[in-house]
Structure formats: structure tokens, C-alpha cells
């Protein structure tokens, strides 16, 4: 599958042109049917926006929310000749796609007001922060708007892992990920190779397969060919690094940990045969902050289309049109009327807004959960992780309650200061830490990070924390569908209710990703456009 779709494909352009032509003739649904017939899913189809040809027939669309779904709809529909008006509750566009840098203000529902005071040039992506290489919908706009990209290091063998709930001598100790990987896999390969060479797997392996299997294990686990034992590997690092002359000369490799200690540490939880689809290398990030993507949209959407600080109070529809009542930035009541609505407001927030939709639609809206999500950026006065520990980006996986992941920046290498991600946690753990005032959250994050890096506390300068479930315009980090709700509620919400179309990451199987918002907008605007063409 993948090689057929990927750059190595024999005739990717021909195939793509074929789908583009299908889309041009019959709209996205026909192109999608074509994709499905050839064994591609919709996800692989949605690498470019639908073709909205045939004219807008003097149609006005009101778009609620200027996050990635709303921006996508505003940009594409505007280009296709639609009259568009966007109402955005925040003072800025981008929705959850925000970078906190000097001057960025956040006031949460508990009344905690934070104004970011990082040094100039320092920032933290408080929302989305990495783009998988296969999110071609996101990358479509990155390319189109000339947003500069850099690599996001999503996997670093040199980064520490830290598991304090395990047992044995390795529990509660920072260990390089590569050491755990080498030892867990090396010893496992040794066991398998020895069992296979004794003939104990002969019921499962033909004689030729047996030898090939052992060859594979020797290679995979870096085993000694002679006795199939694992004695360590250069990849797990050196006690004395190899270098010039005879001293240090060849250096001295580290000794592997004992198999039992590796197992009881439970640090092997960081190992998988292959990264999950959404976490695979290569991952990318915009240079200067994720908000470069919404900024790219804004440069290409006419001024005045987006109205900021507009809080939606009521959403009405009749057989003939739609009306949205809202409160503007000056506190004045106002109204917007049009033919259709694309509503990208998260369901967690939308459920509190009165809206003319059918009862089944309303009930379906109540069937999604939203994830509490916390992040904190810690400005450090030196990049000790690079200078002292030689860790260039990547994550410190750990089992410290409330921390989730500590991540080191993939930007600004070797510069003086840096902002690292001090925690990134979800669910109950996030709820707990977010109940603390911002100074206490920072104190907590610094104290926990100190367990891993001795330089942590002495380098800490400033913090900025974000709790998405306490943001009045998001009330959660992303939608979480149960299997049950995916079956019953989700399909209901993917279809319009009268003249109201919902859109956003919550109406995709890419929840929480920018690509989910963009592809949902593409899908809904294609449906809306088809309807306008037929009217």
C-alpha cells in the first residue's frame, strides 16, 4: 500500500491527475469513490482541497470559529466566489494553534491571568507542535503559504527515559533510551536465537527458515555470531569515547545492564517495533512557531472577513436561511445572516449555545468527551541538555504523575537559551495539575524535571502554562470519541442539520490534529458546494 502511494510509486503523477480529474468532473465524492475503488481510504485522498467549480451563485456562508477548520473554509470558499463572514470568539485567529511568546496573554476559567514574558525569540507551541509527514493536507497549506519548516525530532536514542514506578536498580534513574533499546532487544533476540538453534521452534519453522530467522536475530539484537549471546553494542554508548591516537584510541564500550534489571525497570514501555502511524519520523514543525500556519491563511484572506472578539449567543435557521446572534468586542449585540453556516466551535463549547437543530443532532452532540490537556513551557537560561547531556531535541519519557512527557526543543540549536516543554499531560493527571495556580504548576514541573537533569532548577527562569480544558473557547484539548459514539453519534454530526454544517478536528478520525480540522472543512465545504450547485 504505502509504496504505491509514496514517492517511490511508479507513476504517482498520473494517478494523482486521474483523481484530480475525477474531482473536477464529479466533485470530491466521485474522486473519493475512485480512491476507494482502488483501495485507498479517504485519508489518503485528502491531500488537496476539493475543486469548487461552477460558481457560488451569490451564496453567503457564515463561518463560526477561525481555527484551522474555519480558516480553511473561509479561504477556499472565498476563493470560489462565496461571500464569507467569520465570527471568532478570541482576539486572534488560529483556534488552538497558538504559540506563546512575549506578550501572549491567557486567562483561564479559574481567573488565572498569565502574560508570557519569555525573552524575545523564545516561544512554546501551546497547541499543536508537530506535523507527521503524511499529513499532506496540513502540508498543502504549509507549502502554499510558504511557511518555512524544520525537522521536529520525535525520537532521540540519546534522550533519557525515567521510570520511577518500576523495580530494581534501574528504576528511578535517568537512562539513555538507546541503552534500554539495545539491551531489551539484544537479550530478547538472544533468547529467541538460542531456542531456535536448539530446534525448539522447528514445528513453526522450516530448516531454511530456521537459519534465516537466526540470521535475522543476530542482526536485530547485535548478537555474537559464535554463541548467539548478547554482550552489548556500540550503539548503547561508551564509557570512554573512541578518539584519536592510542589513547583514547578505540575507547571502551559500556557494559549492558542485566536482563532482569531491564525487564523489572519497565522502561521498555518506550519501545515498539515501529512507531505508531501518527508518531512516525519524519515529523516537521514551522520555523518560529506553529501559528505561522494560521498567519499564512490570514495573509490570504481579505481584511474584514474575520470579526474577532465575537461571542456567539444563538444560532438560528429557517428553510430560507440562517441567522447568528452574537456579542461583539464592545459588548454590543449584533446579528449576521446568510444562507449556510459552517460551525467549527468545539462541541464542548457549542453545547452551551442555543442552536436550531433536530433533537437527534443535539443528543449526538452530547456524546463526545473532551480531553483535559496541559502544557508548560519552561525558559532555561542555558541549553544544558545540549551542552552537558548532548541531547538535541526529542522526548524524555517518564512515568511521573502529572508530567507526561518532557520535550526538548528542535529549534535554536546551540543558542544561549531555550524553552523546553516541562509537561504535556492528559486526562485526570492534567486536571490535577491545572487546579494549581500558575506559579505552583511551574514549581511542580521544575521539581519533577530536576529528577532527570541536575541542572534543571538552577537554569529555570520563566514559565508559561496552558490548560486547554480551562480555556473558555475550547473547554478541552481535543474530542475523544468512544467506540459507541463513533458508531451512533458521529455519523449524525458529519451530515448537515438543515443549513448548518459542523466541522473541525472533532469530526474526523484525526482528532486533535490540524489535518483533522482541515480535512473535515474540505469534506463539509464540498458537500455544501454540491448542494449550492444543485439548488
Amino acid at each position: 500500500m504505502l509504496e504505491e502511494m509514496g514517492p517511490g510509486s511508479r507513476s504517482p503523477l498520473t494517478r494523482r491527475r486521474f483523481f484530480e480529474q475525477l474531482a473536477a468532473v464529479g466533485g470530491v465524492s466521485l474522486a473519493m469513490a475512485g480512491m476507494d475503488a482502488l483501495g485507498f481510504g479517504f485519508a489518503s485522498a485528502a491531500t488537496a482541497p476539493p475543486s469548487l467549480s461552477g460558481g457560488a451563485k451569490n451564496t453567503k456562508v457564515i463561518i463560526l470559529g477561525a481555527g484551522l477548520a474555519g480558516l480553511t473554509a473561509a479561504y477556499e470558499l472565498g476563493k470560489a466566489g462565496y461571500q464569507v463572514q467569520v465570527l471568532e470568539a478570541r482576539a486572534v485567529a488560529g483556534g488552538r494553534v497558538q504559540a506563546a511568546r512575549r506578550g501572549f496573554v491567557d486567562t483561564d476559567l479559574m481567573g488565572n491571568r498569565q502574560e508570557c514574558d519569555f525573552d524575545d525569540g523564545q516561544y512554546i507551541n501551546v497547541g499543536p507542535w508537530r506535523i507527521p509527514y503524511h499529513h499532506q493536507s496540513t502540508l498543502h497549506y504549509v507549502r502554499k503559504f510558504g511557511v518555512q519548516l524544520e525537522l521536529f525530532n520525535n525520537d532521540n536514542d540519546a534522550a533519557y527515559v525515567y521510570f520511577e514506578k518500576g523495580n530494581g536498580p534501574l528504576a528511578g534513574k535517568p537512562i539513555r533510551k538507546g541503552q534500554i533499546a539495545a539491551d531489551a532487544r539484544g537479550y530478547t533476540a538472544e533468547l529467541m536465537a538460542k531456542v531456535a538453534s536448539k530446534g525448539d521452534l522447528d514445528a513453526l519453522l522450516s530448516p531454511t527458515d530456521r537459519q534465516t530467522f537466526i540470521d535475522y536475530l543476530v542482526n536485530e539484537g547485535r548478537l555474537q555470531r559464535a554463541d548467539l549471546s548478547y554482550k552489548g553494542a556500540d550503539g548503547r554508548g561508551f564509557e570512554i569515547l573512541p578518539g584519536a591516537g592510542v589513547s583514547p584510541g578505540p575507547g571502551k564500550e559500556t557494559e549492558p545492564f542485566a536482563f532482569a534489571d531491564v525487564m523489572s525497570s519497565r522502561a521498555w514501555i518506550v519501545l515498539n517495533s515501529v512507531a505508531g502511524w501518527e508518531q512516525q519520523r519524519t515529523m516537521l514543525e514551522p520555523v518560529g512557531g506553529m501559528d505561522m500556519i494560521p498567519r499564512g491563511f490570514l495573509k490570504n484572506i481579505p481584511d474584514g472577513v474575520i470579526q474577532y472578539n465575537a461571542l456567539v449567543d444563538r444560532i438560528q435557521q429557517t428553510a430560507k436561511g440562517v441567522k447568528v446572534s452574537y456579542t461583539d468586542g464592545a459588548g454590543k449585540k449584533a446579528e449576521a445572516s446568510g444562507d449556510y453556516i459552517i460551525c467549527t466551535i468545539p462541541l464542548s463549547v457549542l453545547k452551551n449555545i442555543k442552536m436550531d437543530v433536530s433533537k437527534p443532532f443535539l443528543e449526538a452532540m452530547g456524546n463526545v468527551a473532551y480531553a483535559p490537556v496541559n502544557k508548560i513551557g519552561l525558559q532555561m537560561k542555558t541549553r544544558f541538555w545540549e551542552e552537558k547531556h548532548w541531547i538535541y531535541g526529542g522526548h524524555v519519557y517518564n512515568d511521573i504523575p502529572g508530567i507526561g512527557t518532557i520535550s526538548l526543543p528542535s529549534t535554536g540549536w546551540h543558542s544561549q537559551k531555550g524553552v523546553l516543554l516541562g509537561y504535556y499531560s492528559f486526562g485526570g493527571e492534567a486536571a490535577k495539575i491545572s487546579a494549581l495556580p500558575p506559579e505552583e504548576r511551574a514549581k511542580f514541573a521544575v521539581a519533577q524535571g530536576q529528577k532527570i537533569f541536575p541542572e534543571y532548577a538552577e537554569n529555570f527562569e520563566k514559565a508559561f502554562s496552558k490548560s486547554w480544558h480551562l480555556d473558555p473557547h475550547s473547554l478541552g484539548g481535543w474530542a475523544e470519541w468512544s467506540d459507541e459514539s463513533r458508531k451512533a453519534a458521529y455519523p449524525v454530526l458529519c451530515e448537515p442539520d438543515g443549513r448548518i454544517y459542523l466541522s473541525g478536528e472533532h469530526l474526523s478520525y484525526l482528532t486533535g490534529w490540524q489535518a483533522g480540522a482541515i480535512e473535515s472543512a474540505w469534506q463539509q465545504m464540498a458537500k455544501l458546494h454540491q448542494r449550492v450547485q444543485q439548488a
Partner: protein
Amino acid sequence: MRKTVLTAAVLFALAPRAMAAETGQSLYNDNCAACHQRTGAGIKGAFPALTGGKLVTGPLPVLVATVLNGRGGMPAFKSDLTDAQMAMVLTYIRASWGNKASAVTTAQVSQARVKAQAVAKPKALLAH
């Protein structure tokens, strides 16, 4: 001088905080109060109050299913709380802030968990 203060604070924070025995109230404060507030009053327009409503003091299966699977913006706690912890926290909210409903047993939560098909999932290392 400031650094000394910070270091002291750091050391203090490092002291094990999970030593005290869990109670329904401590579990509530840790897991629920960020949104529903320690008073159970919630935040108007965002997080519902747990007082005076039918959900909290009503039939158990609906209440337990809501906490396990989440609903209407509320997160799922099926992987965060054990059945015993959930029984403690539900007992607490059903008997606080003027609520007067029966205590909840671990067995009742376990039963409701099966019914709600809310199997705890291992915590993922990464998301998004």
C-alpha cells in the same frame, strides 16, 4: 538568596505527596475540582454544578457511565480511576454540598463498568 528559596521549595515539592491515604474528598479535589470546583458549584456556561441536579443523585448506571466514558465535553476517567477510587469519589459527591444519595460500592462500579463497556486502556506515551 532567591535561589535558596527556590531550592527549598523544590526540595519540599519532591517529598512524596501520595503518602496520605486517599479519601473520596482527596480524589475529588485531585481529579474533579479543576472543573467542577471544590464547592461542586461548577463554572456557569462551562462545567455543570454537581449540586441540585438529577445526574449525581440519580440512578447509578448513568452516573458511573458518565464518569467512565465522559459526556458532553467531560473527559473519560475509565483509565484514570480504579473501581474502588470511583466508588469513593462518587460516594463523596452524592453526600456533599446538600446532596443526599446512597453510598456507592466498588462492586456497583464494577458492574456498571461492564455494562458501559468502559475498559481501562493503558496510558499512551504520546498523543498528537
